[in-house]
């Protein structure tokens, strides 16, 4: 499916206005702090947020008002979409379980799940590939780079 996008400039414009406002509020807070802490300084941590915040709000409003040349966007469908959502979910789950389950086991699980979801390999193939990947990553990160990684409940 293809369509010509127009909502994106609204989203980015709104994001700029929101973040710009946040920057202005933060600048006001920092300005108060500076007045209280440092006497006589003309500029401080609040100066750049103030300028940037104002510029972001202005540019955000411009995005909301002015029509930009729009982009042709294709939306992923069918197998590709399923693969993308699947692998995104695997990464999110990996992120959640890694600290508790521990690096080795969670990496093996994530690798197997990714080979299943992205490569659509059969279980035995995915498990074998996942095991090989885990060993190689272990050699790379634990042995060569001596990277401290969370060991989790199992201590591995």
């Amino acid at each position, binding site marked *: 499916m293809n369509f010509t996008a127009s909502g994106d400039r609204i989203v980015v414009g709104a994001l700029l206005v929101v973040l710009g406002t946040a920057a202005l509020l933060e600048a006001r807070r920092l300005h108060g702090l500076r007045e209280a802490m440092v006497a006589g300084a003309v500029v401080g941590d609040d100066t750049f947020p103030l300028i940037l915040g104002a510029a972001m709000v202005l540019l955000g409003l411009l995005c909301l008002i002015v029509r930009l040349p729009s982009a042709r966007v294709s939306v992923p469908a069918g197998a590709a979409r399923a693969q993308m959502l699947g*692998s995104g979910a695997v990464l999110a789950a990996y992120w959640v379980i890694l600290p508790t389950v521990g690096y080795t086991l969670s990496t093996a699980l994530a690798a197997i799940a990714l080979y299943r979801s992205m490569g659509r390999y059969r279980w035995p193939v995915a498990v074998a590939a996942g095991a090989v990947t885990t060993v190689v990553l272990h050699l790379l990160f634990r042995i060569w780079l001596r990277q401290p990684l969370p060991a989790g409940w199992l201590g591995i």
Partner: protein
Amino acid sequence: MDALVALGGGFAAALSPMNLAMAVVGALLGTLVGVLPGLGPTAAIALLFPLTTVLAPVPAIIMLSGIYYGAMYGGSTTAILLNIPGEVASVPTCLDGYPLAQQGRGGVALGVAAIGSFVAGTLGVIALTFFAPPLADRALWFGPPEYFGLMVLAFTVIASLSGGSLVRGFAMAMLGYFVSLIGLGPSTAEPRFTFGWEPLMGGVEFIALVVGLFAIAEVFLGLEEARVAIATKLRNVFPRAADLRQALPAILRGTGIGFVLGLLPGCAPGVTVFLAYDAEKKLAREPERFGRGAIEGVAAPESANNATSSAGFIPLLALGIPASPPLAVLLGGLMVYGLQPGPLLFERNADFAWTVIASFYVGNVILLLLNLPLIGMWVWLTRIPYGILGPVILLLAFLGAYSARNSMLDVGVSLVCGIAGYLLRKYQWPLAPLLLAYMLGPLLEKYLLQSLSMSGGSPLIFFQRGVALALLLGAALLLVLSLVIVHYASQRVRETTAEEMAL
């Protein structure tokens, strides 16, 4: 002559067995990751960067420059063999490279690309040797207002990297500046934009941002395009004398165009390659050969690509301004190892800087020596199915983001950046301005504050000092000039690919 003596010292360091080995390893790894379809040079360098952190600074930077050269070259392999431009700079290479591959002359095309890259890269580094130190010698002219002018000049780079639409470029740049503000404020160390949440006090980690925006997002884009490798047979990778005779003038012209225009901020390789390709086509006696497998059509843009990247080293080392995303990642790496590019580089870290420059020469030679015999292996690598490649890249990105600071928060940031990067790329919001603004944000702020403190808060200081004013005027002038050239190039991209690509 001073430059030559200093360079000699650099070579002495760069050619020690350990450092030479690291250059070879770096070039191998860089090419290896660079040829994988679906990973551009920026992502390749960011993914490989953690591997250098176990080394001492000098070999680490030498390995990093090897990675840089390898990754840049790797992109042309997929363009020629698979018709996949890993980034916009490889689009013109596809035009004639892929037809050559279909005719069974893919090996020759890759060989000419390697030779072109070597010639252009080496000429570029020679210019770097002689131009960068005098430029950096002007350090005494530079107070905070002048540095601020430089940062504004860099901002014009950012704006003109936005593929035609200034609004999109500025919007992304401002998001980049915003992200760079998170953390402790520079003058009072008061937390900013952390909203009382302690883990944010360290700011957003550079590697997490790059890996998310460029590697994770790229995997998802690749998944969607269902990239498949095409089997091509390579007969011979060594170009015949006739090929070389045809390619050499194109290599030299491409180098010239790429280098001279590459000195303009904002003229990224994505711009100069099209100009080089078009120039070659206009000069050709039979322009109709182009698009059907003309060897000059590979030689010129490949040389221009490398010449522009090398020209980018001059503002990078002398002024601390990266002109493209891969250079921004390289700059991030140099800073991690305590090398602060900028006018004081050659004063404070002369030996180190010259070692790095020498290693650029070495990197170019190694790449040529490695690539001609190993082309067959790179070709084989491009056939790895995406179902294997995708998961491996994602796992490496995940662990790479973690390893920078041993932080799961950084991994979370890179996952979010992955989603954001995917959506932004889909809707053609350019990512390069975001990354560069993130890099330059803290410097822009520092010089702004120092200048305003000097002047007691009056912004007039930027217009009263000659060099600062000249830099600001230069920025305005270059912005206009770059816009014209970039406009031309983005039209060419649209004609060629029937889609928009951020330059």
